[in-house]
């Protein structure tokens, strides 16, 4: 247990994070790597689920369970529904021809990665592990989240709810021809 990686001691939490985070990253690669649209969607489901588990390990249980309810339970089911209805007939239709644009795209993607990494990595190097106090352990629970949501962020919360209501009404208006 005294081994370290780059000054960070290896704890069970770190190992758990490594396993779950690694699996989540693999799933994220799978989303773009699979030729079959349903498998890509499934990879996204697993990725969202593992992300929720990561939130749990960070004591943010409310955020994690909301992630599962909203993304894994509702939105991804709709995704799968649409993908299955479209029935994209195997990998042949999705096969891409060799294209010079691909090379430029990869180059630009790498450039973006380097720029973002140069900004973020120096900040991340300075992060130090924090002591977990009982108050901190509760910050992700439903009580704490609810309290901040209805006191400090009451106005944005109501604004978002109005926005969602507009979204629902708009989608009904689009979907129904005769009202």
């Amino acid at each position, binding site marked *: 247990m005294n081994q370290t990686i780059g000054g960070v001691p290896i704890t069970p939490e770190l190992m758990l994070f490594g396993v779950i985070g690694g699996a989540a990253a693999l799933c994220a690669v799978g989303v773009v790597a699979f030729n079959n649209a349903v*498998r890509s969607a499934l990879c996204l489901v697993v990725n969202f689920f593992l992300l929720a588990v990561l939130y749990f390990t960070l004591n943010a249980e*409310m955020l994690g369970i909301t992630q599962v309810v909203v993304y894994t339970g509702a939105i991804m*089911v709709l995704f799968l*529904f649409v993908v299955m209805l479209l029935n994209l007939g195997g990998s042949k239709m999705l096969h891409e021809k060799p294209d010079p644009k691909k090379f430029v795209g990869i180059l630009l993607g790498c450039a973006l990665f380097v720029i973002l990494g140069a900004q973020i990595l120096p900040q991340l190097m300075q992060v130090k592990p924090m002591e977990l106090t009982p108050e901190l352990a509760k910050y992700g629970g*439903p009580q704490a989240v609810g309290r901040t949501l209805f006191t400090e962020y009451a106005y944005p919360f109501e604004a978002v709810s109005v926005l969602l209501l507009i979204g629902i009404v708009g989608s009904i208006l689009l979907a129904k021809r005769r009202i």
Partner: protein
Amino acid sequence: MADFVQHLHPAWQALIRVICFVLPSFLLVPMVIWWERRLLAWMQDRIGPNRVGNITFSRSSHLIPSILKGKKFRLFGLMQPMADFAKLIFKEDITPTAVDRLIYFIAPALALFPALAIGATVPWGPFPWITPVADVNIGILYIMAVSSFGVYGIVLAGYASDNKFSLMGGLRSSAQLISYELAMGMSLACIVMSTGSLKPSAMVTAQSAPLWGLDYPPFNLIQNWNVLTPYGLVAAIIFGICMIAENNRPPFDLPEAENELVAGYHTEYSSVKFATFFMAEYLGMVVYGIILSTVFLGGWHLLPIRFDWMATNYKNAGDIWNLLDTLNGSSLLAPVWVILKTCCVASTYIWIRGTLPRLRYDQLMSLGWKSLLPFATANLVVVAIWIVASKVASPLIGWVAVLISAFILFGLYKAINRLNTKNRPNLASRTITMVDTP
């Protein structure tokens, strides 16, 4: 026992907790299958499976001891599920060539996963050292989250089978589960609001308070089971309907409607893979029964009577009341009461199956969206009004406010409904007139 378990390593404790929940619910599955077949047979004036397990000893053989000669031992067909399972295991396991292999194989496992995982936050007794598996702050949300996984097994089975009927079954089930999840969440939210906690164990504790929050006789003789309160009754009925729909049981078994879709999503599945789907359905039935009895039916209490209040107020018979109180809710019999209630809920499932014909698809959708969801939402408003009125004034005034608001909301719903259906042909309900020909 409690001390021994509490001093074990947390990993062992977790394992014990999981086994103590999963094993009994798994053991209930063959029982429920047998009970369903027998009860349905009784309701339909048949006999049902009553033979497997019966032994009749020979009258004339020399190998049989003379006491047993000609004796009959009946087991009422209780071994039938075992025989069924043996049949399913030894059947030929056919995998059609056109299936999407990976998804085809993981779909039954995905169908079983939510049924196994959903009960992790539900307690089955007043023993915090062993139950529930995890007494987390997000208990009810966890139930909602895991129950939403139920759709994946069915949808993926339908997709992977490469069969039009299966695909239709999968699509139907995804639409059905999404629709009924909303009303289910709303009905659970009512109880969350009235309890003030998301923990199922806190809900059980809250249900042993005096009835309707009124602390004088005759009300404080009776426990405040959620099903005994007006809003709780409405929520319990809505939750019960949604639970059957989530579980794809008749009359909501459109994903496997055999007269339209062969067998729906499991048309291409045989042998153990079919048995897994079958087990998932019945395990879901058991576990949803446990959830319903915990959230609405008082959890591990047998009767909604407050024996502890009697013990403090009728001191000359205090010992008897204390004994009854222990038997009612805090002895080792508590899990038995939970299982008893679960069996009652399972019997209701079967009763509904034996009574109602399968819904048509448009009826299913209009029931979910136009009846259950508005009622559950109105119920939520009523609960909110009750909480405010009983906190500000007194519980009695709270109930008056509940009555008034319920009437207003019901009138509003009727008015909107009338405005909506005015000058429109009613397509949701059609009637057939039977003509008696002489």
